[in-house]
């Protein structure tokens, strides 16, 4: 399969409430920045555009239609949208390039989650007859998953607190982070529980923001003459929606996706994992077979700021940044969707 190059990436600051800023105003600044990185003018200078967003976050049907106003889509452009995290928009874009219908693609994701009650909005992702009518929120679902891990002795509360501590400390070096600080595992454990066994710090914050990326063929990357990294593998897998039929201590779909993406083919220097809850990072590390040689979530991950519908794309972008900075040669990025890691995407990014 043809390798595809990442040539530009930018993410807005993750903030708890971006305030007077609509979809277009959220998207335009990140697009402007990726255009600047390549020295291009607008979406006319790429062959395909694909975005990821979710209408229910801000409570308006067709929220993504407004996004098109940010693109400069006159004359008309080749454009598509997934009602998913933009990591899946990247997946769609890669197919477009691989079928020879595009040399380059702009991908963006955006989410303004602050207007609604996110965990309750997400409860309406669940089975509409058995679960959604109970208003079973996303945090409570994750809490039940965490308890299964704790009961099974697979992890301890300290393990979870250490994930949080590492996230907050790593985030100190991430200017886009919403939550950062020199916090120890003991500090976290001293917090009272929120939705037991989870503490607030175990849960990703609610954030507003956007991110954007440009990918292209290797030939096009050379033509643009910018530093680039290569996507050498990508795969994503779904699991059953019935939580009771899944092994919640593991992520089978992540294992399958990692296998499909070829994670095991080499050393993994860096991994950016979309784990909205601390215990899920531990599940993912195990499912991906990561060891001590891998730096996990050097950005702080989504516990430091979670841009719904963009966080998955941002994980890929964070790995890209490490490779371009020379801090890593090979990394993996993970994206997730659905309750308790139901749907997972794994990308392998390597130095060109």
């Amino acid at each position: 399969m043809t390798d595809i190059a990442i040539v530009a990436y930018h993410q807005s600051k993750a903030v708890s409430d971006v305030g007077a800023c609509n979809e277009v105003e959220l998207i335009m600044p990140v697009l402007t920045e990726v255009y600047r990185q390549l020295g291009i003018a607008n979406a006319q200078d790429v062959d395909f555009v694909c975005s990821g967003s979710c209408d229910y976050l801000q409570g308006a049907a067709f929220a993504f239609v407004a996004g098109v106003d940010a693109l400069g889509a006159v004359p008309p452009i080749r454009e598509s949208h997934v009602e998913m995290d933009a990591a899946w928009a990247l997946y769609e874009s890669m197919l477009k390039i691989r079928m020879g219908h595009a040399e380059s693609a702009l991908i963006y994701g955006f989410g303004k989650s602050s207007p609604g009650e996110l965990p309750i909005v997400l409860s309406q992702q669940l089975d509409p007859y058995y679960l959604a009518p109970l208003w079973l929120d996303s945090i409570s679902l994750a809490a039940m998953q965490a308890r299964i891990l704790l009961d099974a002795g697979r992890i301890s509360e300290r393990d979870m607190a250490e994930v949080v501590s590492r996230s907050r400390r790593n985030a100190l070096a991430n200017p886009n982070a919403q939550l950062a600080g020199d916090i120890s595992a003991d500090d976290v454990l001293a917090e009272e529980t929120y939705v037991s066994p989870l503490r607030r710090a175990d849960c990703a914050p609610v954030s507003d923001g956007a991110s954007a990326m440009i990918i292209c063929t290797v030939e096009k990357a050379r033509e643009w003459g910018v530093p680039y990294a290569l996507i050498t593998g990508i795969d994503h897998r779904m699991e059953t929606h019935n939580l009771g039929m899944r092994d919640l201590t593991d992520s089978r779909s992540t294992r399958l996706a990692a296998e499909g993406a070829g994670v095991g083919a080499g050393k993994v220097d860096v991994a950016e994992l979309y784990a909205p809850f601390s215990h899920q990072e531990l599940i993912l590390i195990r499912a991906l077979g990561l060891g001590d040689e891998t730096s996990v979530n050097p950005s702080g991950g989504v516990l430091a700021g979670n841009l719904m519908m963009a966080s998955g794309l941002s994980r890929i972008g964070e790995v890209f940044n490490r490779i371009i900075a020379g801090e890593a040669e090979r990394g993996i990025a993970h994206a997730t969707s659905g309750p308790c890691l139901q749907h997972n995407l794994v990308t392998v990014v390597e130095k060109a």
Partner: protein
Amino acid sequence: MMANLAAVVGIGQTKYTTKRHDVSIAGLVREAAVNALEDAQLSWDDIDAVIIGKAPDMFEGVVMPEIYLADALGCNGKPMLRVHTAGSVGGSTALVAASHVQSGSFRRVLTVAYEKQSESNAMWALSTPQPFSTHLNAGAGGYFAPIIREYMRRSGAPYDAGIKVAVKDRLHGARNPLAHLQKPDITMKEVEESFMLWDPIRFLEACPSSDGACAMVIADEGLAEQAPRPPAWIRGVAMRSEPTMYAGRDEVNPQAGRDCAGDVYRQAGISDPRRDLDCAEVYVPFSWYEPMWLENLGFAPEGEGWKLTMDGATSLDEGGDIPWNPSGGVLCSNPIGASGMIRFAEAARQVRGDAGDHQVEGARLALGHAYGGGAQFFAMWVVGADKG
């Protein structure tokens, strides 16, 4: 680099109706999927990935419904992707599904699009005002009626061109047992006397609101060649988008539609669509959009689309040379999220010679078309009985 060859090897639809009382959302989607698998003589294990599409989640009130539909579509352990490009989504979803195969990444995928509109009220879902909204929302008809009026002014079309389309498509639909509206005895007079909803759009010139789903199996060249029933080879694929509003936008004849058609024709080697294509399934939710799209898609010179309609060129019953919407089209059945895929699938049925009583005799090359938003998102494909 050339795209790999891909073909439709299985098609499944539900019967379209106002409300499917007898199935859950999963049951509706599943029915189309199973029909497509049966048509392809395949089982769930033969499917490598599933690509699903529908219009806004608010129609059914299920957020990102692929999460819940994973089991109904046999997705456990497989890739599953959800597309949403407004009203064009059924077409876009088919194109994204095709790209899974055309990119060489997958050998055989299932794609499904649906809408169970009866769970809510589409009008409500499309009109929910956000605070400080500066738009006066009069529904889809309220949005498109002024554009139709401008077309009528520009083209000087006779007032009854829309009425003619409304009758023609309902007569086509009467040949299609899956069509929602069954009106074999419809007359021009009946349409003309029907209630004027959004002047110049009369009740019978507008589409119904339907429940329904449509599915296709798309396979690579090797598998398609071995398929038990004739494949519909995908000869061209194109998408275009433009903003809803910009100064100087031609809303009557949007450039995105013209460009998209030009792109898909170039791939399929079509220089004169009226001559080269045998039929077309085109997204016509309000009758006047037939003459408008005849021009936009290059079947007629600008200002003359209505002449084809009035001459019967697009009618099966009048022996027209380029039947449009032999299935009855969106004017007969409109499960919004599925409507685009139904157009794509019906085009494929024609070139597979499998369209029953609405078969266009000897059809070898057909266009499937979908549009959405403020007539700003376009998705099209050309399918053929031959690889090309």
